[in-house]
């Protein structure tokens, strides 16, 4: 197989012409977005260069502790990001459940993937450990974010329905079944959609990467299929954990709706 073509620094600089074109367009159309475009481009560049150095260091000093530190940082960032991206205010109880279900759901799926499906060797090999953990955690983060929004929104817009069910003697899980199912559905829908479009509408990033690095397409799709299944598992597991414990935070010990 061919080795990957190397891009020289000057070739890379020529790619920034796309940003220059974008800046010209927004200036011409008088769309006030120049500042954001420049900041975004700078951030993207600086962040990636830094990550490049960090990964280089980690790959050269293959140590268990580094892989573990990276996954802890990823999980922390993901949980924090869910809090930030949810527009509604979250109770501290719900925040706790978000963190626990996010971490335990993704870790379980990831360890299964690591030890059973792909069997990294050693199990903390950063070339596999870091990107794959990143994909599982990133997708679960999106899933839980959607689930949280849908759950909180559901309890506020369908409050009357839940109360009417309680008044008739429904236990809290039955009274909130519709809301919980809807939240699960909206949380996993993007994952299901991406499986449907996979390979036809787009070539996923991971597969592209594997192909670019010189591996054959069949190896690339094997990885892609495995990771897609891993992502589905990780998303559904963390979302169902979140919903199963999360809905309970909307009720008090007298089976009354808080709010």
């Amino acid at each position, binding site marked *: 197989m061919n080795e990957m073509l190397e891009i020289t620094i000057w070739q890379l600089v020529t790619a920034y012409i796309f940003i220059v074109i974008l800046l010209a367009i927004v200036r011409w159309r008088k769309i006030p977005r120049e500042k954001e475009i420049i900041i975004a481009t700078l951030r993207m560049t600086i962040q990636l260069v830094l990550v490049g150095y960090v990964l280089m260091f980690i790959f050269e000093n293959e140590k268990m502790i580094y892989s573990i530190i990276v996954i802890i940082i990823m999980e922390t960032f993901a949980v924090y990001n869910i809090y930030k991206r949810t527009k509604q205010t979250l109770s501290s109880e719900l925040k706790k459940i978000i963190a626990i279900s996010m971490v335990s759901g993704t870790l379980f799926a990831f360890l299964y993937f690591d030890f059973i499906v792909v069997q990294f060797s050693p199990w903390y090999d950063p070339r596999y450990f870091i990107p794959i953990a990143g994909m599982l955690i990133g997708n679960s983060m999106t899933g839980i974010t959607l689930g949280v929004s849908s759950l909180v929104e559901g309890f506020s817009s369908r409050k009357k*329905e839940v*109360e*009417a069910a309680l*008044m*008739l*003697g429904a236990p809290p899980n039955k*009274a909130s079944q519709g809301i919980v199912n809807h939240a699960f559905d909206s949380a996993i829908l993007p994952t299901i959609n991406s499986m449907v479009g996979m390979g036809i509408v787009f070539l996923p990033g991971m597969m592209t990467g594997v192909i670019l690095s010189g591996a054959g397409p069949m190896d690339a799709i094997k990885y892609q299929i495995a990771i897609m299944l891993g992502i589905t598992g990780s998303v559904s597991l963390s979302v169902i954990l979140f919903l199963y414990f999360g809905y309970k935070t909307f009720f008090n010990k*007298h*089976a*009354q709706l808080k709010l």
Partner: protein
Amino acid sequence: MFSIKQLVFKDIITVNKLEIKSGKIYCLFGESGSGKSTLLKMFNSMLTPDQGIIAYKDQSITDVDPVQLRREVVMLGQDPVVFDGTVRDNLLIGLQFADKADVEDQVLIDLLKDLHLKKDLDKEADKLSGGEQQRLAVGRVLLMNAEVYLMDEPTSALDEETETAVMDLFTKKIRDAGKTAIMVTHSKEVAEKYSDEIIYMNDIVTNEGALS
């Protein structure tokens, strides 16, 4: 059946003493804002008083499992709620919520007729008008075969004629079965015509803040 002693809920209501006897129909009567709905919700633990005791069958309500309590003491809220699905689904959903057995279609058809609701069981319930939805909600509660019925303005969206039909049916069913009902209404006529006893909010509520 119920006895209330020195009940306080936020700064909304303070009730010194109230007894509800089994097998009677009560009306809670008072102007809006007098705390009728708030008080009604305490009988089936939809709200819990901050202070004082409300007992059901000589047991403090806070010691009873709220879900089991609500299966004996069912409530119809102020705004009729329609769930997804057909008229049949909406009538049966209360039984399903409470883990009770479904009933035959014929029972539902008879019930709809009694409620002056000439609708097909397979019709989508959200297509019904406000008054029809309210009768559907009353029907759902009547199917529950409960010990106590708490009804918050069960006929607020109905015209006089339908109101009479619904109230006649409802009170007859309760009396025939020897059950208890507590209704909230702001209509003096309804209160006088249908209840055994009118509870005037003004008489039971003390507005002097928390009781000492």
